[in-house]
């Protein structure tokens, strides 16, 4: 991890801890769910399950980056997450046949109270706010 300059503590303390906690839960949930799906019934919906696994990896990266105060990695991962939820959300509504099984990002995260859609926006706002203050 290269970015520990100055603002690291500002990123991971205070409200940052809540972000780490939420991302931690999502990392755990998405990764283990994808692992089970790929291990037991990959053939049913390969694309959806690979996307679920990818989402899980993004959440793991974000949890670690936020917990270590690696701001640049965290912002990049938030952008990937936001792009993922927007693209997959749109595709899952436009072409439901391509997604016979739900991913975390289907329907813009509607199966998870839209948390996957809101979280990266909050994450980016929090990370950038820290930049200005530091």
């Amino acid at each position: 991890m290269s970015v520990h300059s100055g603002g690291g503590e500002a990123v991971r303390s205070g409200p940052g801890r809540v972000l780490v906690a939420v991302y931690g839960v999502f990392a755990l949930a998405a990764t283990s769910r994808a692992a089970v799906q790929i291990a037991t019934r990959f053939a049913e919906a390969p694309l959806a399950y690979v996307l679920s696994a990818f989402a899980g990896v993004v959440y793991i990266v974000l949890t670690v980056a936020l917990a270590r105060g690696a701001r640049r990695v965290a912002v990049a991962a938030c952008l990937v997450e936001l792009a993922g939820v927007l693209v997959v959300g749109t595709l899952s509504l436009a072409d439901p046949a391509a997604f016979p099984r739900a991913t975390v990002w289907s329907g813009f995260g509607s199966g998870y109270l839209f948390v996957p859609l809101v979280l990266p926006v909050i994450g980016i706002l929090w990370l950038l706010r820290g930049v200005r203050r530091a």
Partner: protein
Amino acid sequence: MNGAYSGWLIGAALVLALVSLITTVRNRPMGPVLLAGLGLLELAVLAQAGFALAGLGNVAEKATFIGYLAGTVVIPPAAIWWGRAERTRWGPAVIVVAAFSVAVMTGRLLQLWSAGA
């Protein structure tokens, strides 16, 4: 796994989340009430895990079921650790997330349980 017991557990976890939220809004760090609440929640999810594993034969989605069980057991101690480390309002804010997650995961456990029975 016992539906009524797990129903009470979900309710208790939501109450704990509410108390933590009030603590966050009042700008207080984690106090003895939240600490005791998390301790009791941990005992409750351990008991639930015991019941659930005893009847594991009824569940179709075993891997997912065990994953959620492990999640509920791991989360309260993590929240205690966090509440002690962050001595501001944001400690209880983490506990809100933790307690709510336990409630949601217990709900998913109940779904998996009744689907397999």
